[in-house]
C-alpha cells in the first residue's frame, strides 16, 4: 500500500471509532463549551473586552479542547497495544503519523465548528467581524497544533506521566503559533494590526513542523 493509503486507513479507522463511541468528541466539545462559558463569567464579557482580548480567550478554549483530542490520538492505541500491531506492518512511521494527524485535525475542527458560533454569541462579536479570516486562522492554527501535538502525543507515550507531558512539550514549541493565531483573530475581530503577516507566519510554521514531524516520524515510533 502506498503511504497515502495507509494514512487514509489510519485516519478512517480513528474517526470511525470516534464516531461510534463519541467519547472524546463529546467530552472535548463540552469541555471547550465550559471554558468559554466560564470565561464569559470570569471576564464579565462585553463588546469592549472582545475587541481587546476576544482572540486570546477563544484560543485558550480551543487549546484546552485540542489537548484532550491530541492526548487521545495515541492513548487509544495503548489500551489494546494496537500500536505495536501497526508498527509490525510495513507502514512507515510518517504514514501512521499522517493518519493520526488527520483524525486529530478533523476532531479539533469539529469542536471549533460548535465553539465559534457560541463564542460569537456569548462575547458579542462585533458586526463587522471578518468570519472568513477567523475560519482561515482557525484552520491554519489547528493544523499547527495538530501537527506538533500528534508528534508529541506519540513522544509522550514513552513517559510515565503521559497526560501531563503532552502540554508541557506542546505549549513551548507552539508559542509562535499561538501568538500568530491570537493576533490574527484579534485583527479579524476589528483590532489594529495586519493579519496578513500572522497568517503567513502560521503557514510557514505549518510547513516547517509538518515536514519536521513527518521527516522524524520514524524516530518517535521506533520499536525498542
Amino acid at each position, binding site marked *: 500500500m502506498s503511504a497515502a493509503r495507509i494514512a487514509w486507513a489510519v485516519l478512517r479507522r480513528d474517526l470511525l471509532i470516534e464516531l461510534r463511541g463519541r467519547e472524546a468528541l463529546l467530552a472535548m466539545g463540552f469541555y471547550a463549551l465550559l471554558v468559554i462559558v466560564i470565561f464569559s463569567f470570569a471576564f464579565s464579557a462585553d463588546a469592549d473586552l472582545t475587541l481587546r482580548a476576544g482572540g486570546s480567550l477563544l484560543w485558550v478554549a480551543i487549546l484546552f479542547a485540542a489537548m484532550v483530542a491530541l492526548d487521545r490520538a495515541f492513548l487509544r492505541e495503548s489500551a489494546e497495544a494496537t500500536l505495536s500491531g501497526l508498527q509490525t506492518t510495513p507502514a512507515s512511521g510518517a504514514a501512521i503519523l499522517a493518519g493520526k494527524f488527520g483524525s486529530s485535525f478533523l476532531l479539533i475542527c469539529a469542536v471549533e465548528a460548535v465553539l465559534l458560533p457560541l463564542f460569537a454569541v456569548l462575547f458579542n462579536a462585533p458586526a463587522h467581524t471578518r468570519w472568513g479570516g477567523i475560519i482561515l486562522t482557525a484552520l491554519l492554527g489547528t493544523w499547527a497544533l495538530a501537527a*506538533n501535538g500528534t*508528534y508529541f502525543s506519540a*513522544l509522550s507515550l*514513552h*513517559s*510515565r*506521566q503521559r497526560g*501531563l*507531558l503532552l502540554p*508541557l*512539550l506542546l*505549549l*513551548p*514549541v507552539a*508559542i*509562535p503559533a499561538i*501568538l*500568530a493565531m491570537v*493576533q490574527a483573530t484579534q485583527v479579524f475581530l476589528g483590532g489594529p494590526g495586519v493579519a496578513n*503577516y*500572522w497568517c503567513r*507566519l502560521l503557514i*510557514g*510554521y505549518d510547513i*516547517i*513542523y509538518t515536514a*519536521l514531524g513527518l521527516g*522524524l516520524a520514524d*524516530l*518517535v515510533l*521506533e520499536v*525498542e
Partner: protein
Amino acid sequence: MSKTFQANLLGAGTLALLLAALYWALYGAPTEATMGTIQRIFYYHVPAAAASWTALAINALASLAYLATRSRKADALAVAGAEVGLAFLTIVLITGPIWARPVWGVWWVWDPRLTLTLAMWVMYASYLILRQLTPEGGSQPRLAAVLAVFFAADIPIDYMSIRWWRGQHPAPVLFGGPDSGLAPRMLAALLLSMTAFLALMAVLVAMRYRQELLRDRITGLRQRRMLAAEN
C-alpha cells in the same frame, strides 16, 4: 597529570578570570553617564546571555550528532549543554529585570529579546522535564534529541513572530551600526567578563558531561556486581 588535577587547574583558572571580571565590572570600567552604577550589571547580563546561547548551541549540535550516530557521548553532551544553558538563561532573566526596573521604569516588557529569552527558558525547562519523566536509557536519549531539534527550529520562528509583535530592548551595543560602540575601558570589562563566563560555561559543561559518563560506569559496575552475586 591526572584528570582530576587538570580539572582543578581549569576550575582555578576560571575562578581567577571570574574574579578579575568582577573587579573590572565594579571598579575597572567607568560609570555610565545616564544610567549610573546600575549599568554595571551589563557586564554580567550580556556575557550570561552569550554563555547560554553557546551552551544551547552545544545542545542542538550534540542532539543532531546523537540522532546521526546514536553515541552515548553525544547524548551526555546534549544533557550537559541543556542544563548549563538553562542555568545561564536563568541568570539572564534575573539580571534583566533588575536592570530594567531603574532604567526603563518597569520590571518586564514584552520586547522581542526578552520574550524570546523567556520562551527559550520555557522550552529548555520542558526538555529537562521530558528527561525527568521518561525512564533512563532506552528511548530517552532519542526522544530528547528529537525534542531538541524541534526546539532549535522554533527559535528563529519565535524571534520573527515576537519582533512583529513589539520592541523596546536596546539595539546591540557591539556591531550594531554607526551609533553603537563602547568606551574602550567598558569594552575591556565586557570582553574580560565574556571570556570568564564562556570559560565557566565550558568548565560546567565538561564537568556535567564527565559526570554523566561516570554515572554510566557506576551503573554498569553495580549491574556486574549484582550478576556476580547471583551466580
